C-alpha cells in the first residue's frame, strides 16, 4: 500500500460536495499510461506532470481521496487547462477528460474562494451577460465605444496598455460589429433554387456582437446551396462557456431554453458555425440525462446538431460560381476535431472551393485561444500560440483557414507576432467568396 505520509496539504475527507462531483468511475478509467502527455499543449510548454492530463486527473483523484486540499495549487493547474480535449483524442483507455474537467471546475466554483474581483467578474460574466442578449449588447456597445472613439488609439499610442500589462489582451479582443446580429433573430431565409434542406441556425452570443458578418455569410452560403435557414426566435447562448467555467446548472438552464426554441418540426439539422457551440449542443443529451422532462428531447436535439462544415459536406456543395486560388493550411479547432471528430469535412470544402491545401505539422494542436483562455492565461496562451505559428510558418500559406471565431482571432494575433503576411479566414468566408 502507498507509503506517503499524509502531510499538511492533506485533509481527511473528499473535498467534493456537489451532485456534479467527479466520480471514481470517471477518473479511475485513467490508467496513468502517459500516452496523452505529449499531445497536451500545456505539458509541452511547461513540462510538468501537474500541467498534463494525467497529472490533472490525478489531482482530482487526490482531492477526492482527501490527500490534497482543493486549494490554490490545484486550482492553478486546472485553470491552466485549455479544455482542448487533445488528451481525449489521444487516450486509448477512453477517459472522458472533458467531463472530469467540467465537474472539477464545478467543484472549484462551489468550494473554492477566488479573489474578490475575479469572483465578481466571473459571476457577472457567467451569471448574466452571455445569455442575456440585452446586457450583452450594452457591454458590447461600451467596448465598441472604446474601440471607435479614439480611446483605443490613444491607449495604444500612449503606452498605457503596456503600462497596465494588457497590451496583448487588447490585440486579442474582437472588433465589435457596427451592426449586431440580434435583429435577425426570428427571421427565415428561403433556399435559393431547389430546396435541399431546412435547418435551424444558432446565432451565438459573442458571435452576434463581434461576428455578425460571419453569421450573415453562413446564411448566404447555406441558402445559396439550397438550404432554408431559420434563425429561431427565443434561442440563447449554447452554454459552453458556462459548462467549461464550472457553471453546469446555468448551462442546463440555457440548454432547456434552446431545446424549446430550436426544435421546430421539419428541420433536418441544427447548425452552428462555432465549434465550441456545436460540441456543447451535441452533449445536451448527457447534460440533461437526469432531467426527466427534457432527457429525451435533449437526446433528439443533440442528434440533430451539425457543425456547418459537417452539414455542407454531408449534403454536398453545389458547383461554385467563382474560383479562389492560393495555398491554404487548415487549423483544426479543438472543439471540432477533438470535441466532435470533424476533421475531413472542412478540408474537403476548402479543396472544393479551389484552394491548394497544404497540411502543417500538428494541425490539431490547440492555438491557445480556448474561449476566454487567451485573456485569463495570457502568457501561457502566447507561448502555445508561438509554437503553433512555427508550424504555420513552415508551410508558407497565403490563407490560414479554420472553422471557429476564437481561433481566427488568436491566429491573427499570431501572424502579427511573427510579422507574417497571410489571411486568416473561416472556411465559411472562403465559401462565401465563391458563391
Amino acid at each position: 500500500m502507498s507509503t506517503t505520509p499524509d502531510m499538511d496539504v492533506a485533509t481527511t475527507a473528499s473535498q467534493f460536495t456537489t451532485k456534479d462531483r467527479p466520480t471514481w468511475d470517471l477518473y479511475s478509467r485513467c490508467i496513468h499510461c502517459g500516452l496523452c502527455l505529449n499531445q497536451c499543449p500545456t505539458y509541452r510548454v511547461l513540462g510538468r506532470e501537474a500541467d498534463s492530463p494525467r497529472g490533472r486527473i490525478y489531482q482530482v483523484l487526490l482531492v477526492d481521496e482527501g490527500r490534497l486540499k482543493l486549494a490554490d495549487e490545484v486550482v492553478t493547474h486546472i485553470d491552466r487547462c485549455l479544455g482542448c480535449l487533445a488528451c481525449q483524442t489521444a487516450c486509448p483507455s477512453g477517459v472522458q477528460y472533458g467531463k472530469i474537467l467540467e465537474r472539477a471546475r464545478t467543484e472549484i466554483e462551489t468550494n473554492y474562494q477566488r479573489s474578490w474581483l475575479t469572483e465578481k467578474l466571473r459571476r457577472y460574466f457567467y451569471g448574466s451577460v452571455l445569455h442575456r442578449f440585452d446586457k450583452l449588447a450594452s457591454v458590447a456597445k461600451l467596448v465598441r465605444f472604446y474601440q471607435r472613439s479614439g480611446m483605443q488609439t490613444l491607449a495604444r499610442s500612449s503606452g498605457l496598455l503596456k503600462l497596465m500589462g494588457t497590451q496583448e489582451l487588447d490585440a486579442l479582443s474582437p472588433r465589435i460589429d457596427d451592426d449586431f446580429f440580434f435583429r435577425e433573430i426570428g427571421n427565415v431565409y428561403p433556399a435559393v433554387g431547389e430546396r435541399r434542406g431546412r435547418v435551424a441556425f444558432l446565432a451565438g452570443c459573442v458571435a452576434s456582437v463581434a461576428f455578425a458578418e460571419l453569421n450573415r455569410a453562413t446564411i448566404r452560403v447555406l441558402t445559396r446551396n439550397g438550404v432554408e435557414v431559420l434563425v429561431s426566435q427565443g434561442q440563447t447562448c449554447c452554454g459552453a462557456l458556462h459548462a467549461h467555467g464550472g457553471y453546469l446548472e446555468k448551462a442546463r438552464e440555457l440548454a432547456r431554453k434552446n431545446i424549446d426554441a430550436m426544435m421546430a418540426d421539419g428541420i433536418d439539422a441544427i447548425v452552428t458555425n462555432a465549434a465550441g457551440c456545436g460540441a456543447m449542443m451535441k452533449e445536451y443529451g448527457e447534460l440533461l440525462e437526469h432531467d426527466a422532462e427534457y432527457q429525451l428531447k435533449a437526446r433528439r436535439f443533440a442528434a440533430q446538431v451539425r457543425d456547418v462544415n459537417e452539414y455542407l459536406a454531408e449534403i454536398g456543395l453545389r458547383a461554385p460560381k467563382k474560383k479562389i486560388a492560393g495555398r491554404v493550411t487548415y487549423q483544426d479547432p479543438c472543439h471540432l476535431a477533438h470535441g466532435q471528430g470533424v476533421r475531413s469535412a472542412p478540408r474537403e470544402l476548402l479543396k472544393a472551393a479551389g484552394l491548394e491545401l497544404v497540411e502543417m505539422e500538428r494541425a490539431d494542436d490547440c492555438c491557445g485561444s480556448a474561449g476566454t483562455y487567451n485573456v485569463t492565461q495570457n502568457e501561457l496562451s502566447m507561448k502555445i500560440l508561438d509554437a503553433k505559428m512555427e508550424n504555420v510558418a513552415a508551410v508558407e500559406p497565403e490563407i490560414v483557414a479554420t472553422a471557429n471565431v476564437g481561433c481566427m482571432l488568436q491566429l491573427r494575433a499570431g501572424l502579427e507576432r511573427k510579422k507574417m503576411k497571410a489571411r486568416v479566414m473561416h472556411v465559411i468566408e472562403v465559401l462565401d467568396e465563391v458563391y
Partner: protein
Amino acid sequence: MSFDEVITQLQGLLGAQHVLHRPEDLMLYEYDASVDKGTPGAVVFPSTTEEVAALVRLAHRAEVSVVPRGAGTGLSGGSISRDRGIVIVFTRMNRILEVDVANRRAVVQPGVVNLDLSAAVARYGLYFAPDPSSQKACTIGGNVAENSGGPHTLAQGVTVNHVTGIEVVLGTGEIARFGGKCIDTCGYDVTGYFTGSEGTLGIVTEITVKLVRKAEAVATLLAIYNTVDEGANSVVEITAEGITPTALEMLDGLTLRTVEEATHAGYPMDSGAVLLVELEGLREEVEEQAALVRGVCMRNGAREVRRAKDETERALLWKGRKNAFAAIGRLAPSYYTQDGVVPRSKIPQTLRYIAEVSKKYGLTIANIFHAGDGNMHPAILFDLRDPDQLKRTVAAGADILAYCVSLGGSITGEHGVGMEKNALMPLLFNETDLDVMHRLHDAFNPGVLNPQKVFPTPRSCRETGSASLPPELRRRP
C-alpha cells in the same frame, strides 16, 4: 546534511523554479504507467549535463538517491523513487541537437520524445526505428534505459541496435562519453552495456542514434482467425518458411474487440485472433513474401487475409495495435501486464498455459504480443477494490513468468525489471551471475542512482496503487 539543506542547495544549483519540493507537487511524481507507487523527496528539472553532474555530486555527498525520469510511461516502476530521493525529469533537456543526414545520425538530448524525432527527420525520408507502442509519449532517454523495442524490433532490432554513442553522468558525478557516430569503437562496448541498464549505472544526458531510411515498399496484412491456436501456428510456420517480416503482431479475441471499440481499426468483432504482418523491402521481394504469408495463414485456418490498400489503411491497422495496451483500460479498473519471452516455436503452448492460469486463478487475461519475437504480453485484468483479486493477480503473473523461464525464455522482453520484477531475477540468474552484475554496477554507480531496482532486494514488498481505491474502501489514518 538535512533534506531541507539538500533542497536549498538544489535551488542554488538550478534556480528555485526548477525544483519541486512541496508535497502537493511531489505527489504527481509518485506514479508511472506501472502499478507501483512511491513519492519522491524532490523533483528537479536540469537543463544541461553539467547541472545533472552537479546535482548527482550533491546527492552523493548528502547520501540521497537519484532517479531519472523521462515521460513516466515505464511499466516496471523504473522512474519511481522508493526512498524519497530526488527525481530528475528531462522535459527541459528535449532538444534535437543535430541531424546528420549524410551519415544518418541524430544527436539528441534524453527528453526528446521518440515520435517527435521521427517527425523531425521525416522530410529526409528517415526515421528512428525503435517503435514502442508508447512512442508518441516516451522519451529516447527512457528508450535507452529500458532498451525498448516495438513491433518492428523483429527486423530492426531493439534500441541497443540503434544507439552508437552516449554521454552519461555516472553515479559519482563524473561525465563520460562512449561511442560516437561511427559503429566501430575500440575498447569495451560500454554504450551497449548502458543501454537497458534502467538508470542504475548512469544518467544518459546525450544520445547519438541511427536514423533508418524508409523502405521502398511496404505490405501490411491482417490475417483473421477463429482461434488463437491457428494464429500462433501461423507465426511458427511463417518464420520456419524463411520469410522475414518486419513485424509480426498478434491480438487475441478479447483484446481485439476492445481495441476495435477504441480505435475502429477494422478488426472483425467476432474473430478469435488477428495477426498483423508487415513486410518491407524492394517491391518485388515484398510482393513475393506477401503471397507466401497469405498462403501460410490460409493453410493454418485463417478466415480471411486482408491487405492495407494505402498508407491511411496501414496507419489504421497500426493504430489498433499501438493503442492495444491502453485500450485494455476499458475492460477493467486495473490490469497488470506481463512481459515474458519464450522461443517462438513455443508460443502455442504458452498461450494454452496462460488460458489455464486464467482458469486456475479465476482472472480474465487479454493477450497482445510481439509474436515474431516470442515476446508475450498477457494483461491480467483485476479490480483493485478487491484485495483478494490483487493477490491472485500477482501470483498469476509470477506463475506465467516462471513458465516462460522453464521453456528457456525470460521474465522481460522490453518493459524492464525495475521495482516490479526484481524479486524474480533469481529465476534467471544464479548467485554468481548476480554477483558479477553487482560488481559491474558498483564500478559505475557506487549507490545513489536508482537504488532498489533490477537487483532483488531483501525487502521487495509490492507497493500497489492504493491511490485508485474508491472512497468507501479507503483506509483513514
